């Protein structure tokens, strides 16, 4: 396990159990509430929603314009109700990166819950002051002539990056494209790449 | 460096907590690490600014969760190792040895 991962701590484990059983006992918590919340955020939402929106935008210029200009409406087309997303577009001249320095704000409804590293002090402290170095650690070297725009989402808007369509992907279907778009690409710490096709 | 030591104006640490009739040192190890720092400084292998910087090298979360003389201990180890006067594995071996002695178990293998 990396250093960013929380330590397994018997103390915390037993404290969480104690709290849950207390709240149940006091009737402050419905018996199935915890399971339902967990299911929603563990299984039903996730980066596949954001990936779907980006894949459609890549294939459909009208949808792309809407996703960038009216993201709430564009998400509604996908059956997602979410009114505070801002989509920022990567171009050959600009690379975008999202962070929340004050806590760990993240567009849950279109990207699921954030990865541990996104919530860890190392990322939160460094993304604003040395984004190129952080990106390089993720294996993404942004050339000096390309601007880096860091979006610190410390207010109520949530940011998602629209990565660039990788070369050679023009003929792929929306499903195929969506499957290539990673959570990391939507945060802005990776580009979308196509695997070298064998044969 | 923008480290955890740079505390001026930070919120969230709660009230100042003075202790009536506070002793100079609270534990014997505090006495020892204080004197070890001064005596080792005399070796002339580093200066006071290097000592301060060494304490700032403590990981930020650990710095805030530990006390003053633990910072001094960290800094001293850091400098001794950096200057090649002591190897990290020597420290770990000695720690392990002392722990075995104190627990009163025979050394491993015997």
């Amino acid at each position: 396990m990396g250093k960013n991962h929380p330590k397994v701590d018997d103390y915390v484990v037993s404290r969480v159990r104690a709290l849950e059983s207390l709240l149940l006992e006091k009737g402050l918590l419905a018996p199935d509430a915890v399971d339902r919340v967990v299911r929603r955020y563990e299984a039903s939402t996730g980066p596949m929603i954001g990936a779907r929106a980006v894949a459609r935008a890549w294939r459909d210029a009208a949808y792309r314009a809407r996703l960038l200009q009216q993201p709430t409406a564009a998400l509604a087309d996908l059956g997602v109700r979410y009114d505070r997303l801002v989509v920022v577009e990567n171009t050959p001249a600009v690379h975008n990166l999202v962070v929340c320095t004050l806590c760990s704000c993240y567009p849950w409804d279109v990207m699921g819950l954030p990865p541990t590293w996104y919530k860890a002090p190392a990322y939160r402290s460094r993304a604003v002051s040395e984004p190129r170095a952080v990106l390089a650690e993720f294996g993404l070297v942004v050339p000096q002539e390309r601007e880096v725009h860091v979006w610190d989402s410390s207010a109520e808007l949530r940011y998602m990056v629209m990565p660039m369509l990788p070369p050679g992907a023009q003929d792929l279907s929306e499903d195929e494209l969506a499957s290539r778009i990673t959570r990391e690409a939507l945060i802005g710490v990776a580009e979308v790449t196509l695997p070298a096709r064998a044969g | 460096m923008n480290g955890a030591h740079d505390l001026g104006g930070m919120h969230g640490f709660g009230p100042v907590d003075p202790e009536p009739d506070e002793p100079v040192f609270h534990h014997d190890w505090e006495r020892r690490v204080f004197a070890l720092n001064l005596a080792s400084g005399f070796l002339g292998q580093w200066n006071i600014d290097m000592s301060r910087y060494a304490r700032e090298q403590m990981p930020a979360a650990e710095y805030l969760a530990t006390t003053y003389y633990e910072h001094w201990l960290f800094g001293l180890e850091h400098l001794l190792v950096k200057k090649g006067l002591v190897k990290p594995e020597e420290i770990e071996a000695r720690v392990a040895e002392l722990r075995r002695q104190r627990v009163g178990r025979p050394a491993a293998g015997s």
Partner: protein
Amino acid sequence: MSHDHDHHHDHDHDPDHPGEHGAPLSGPALRVKALESLLVEKGLVDPVALDQLIDRYETKVGPRNGARVVARAWTDPAFKRRLLDDTSSAMAEFGYTGRQGENMVVVENTPTIHNMVVCTLCSCYPWPVLGLPPVWYKSAPYRSRAVIDPRGVLREFGVELRDDVEVRVWDSTAELRYLVLPLRPAGTQGMSEEQLAEIVTRDSMIGTGVVNGLSAR
């Protein structure tokens, strides 16, 4: 908080002779012991020097030194002038020199100015005149709040300043070390220098206290 972090002075419960009765040494106590034995073994430190250093800072220097300086400044105007103008030499008259007191500055409280001292970056403190600093001086709450909320900190120390008093916080992050010259309390006219030195508290010389004439005993 029910699961608050250990308080600084009850980290381990065997303060003076850790491990003496077979209890395992742990944490920093164990590491310090290991380091000391290694350094002694390598001839890098002299065990006698360690004992001398500890004895010096635990028993020989302390806030009584600063209190004597303050009492003299209260009773001898010529000394007070020297103390404010050339602090290090005035202190040398008492023999209070050396490490962490090489470059001293005395700042004087007046009815309209209250001074207080902090080191936000570490815990710099004038050792020769005050000894080693108390835990609270080195703690995050004091270091973080003294510069942003000095009046709030002072209130917690029981010092209530009138609104028209200017608060000057000296953040001693460079190599100068500060000593506050507190106000001499009313009703102490008849007291000798020695008696005055008795009533000067450590906190009044850091600036988190004032000298109270009524509680003078």
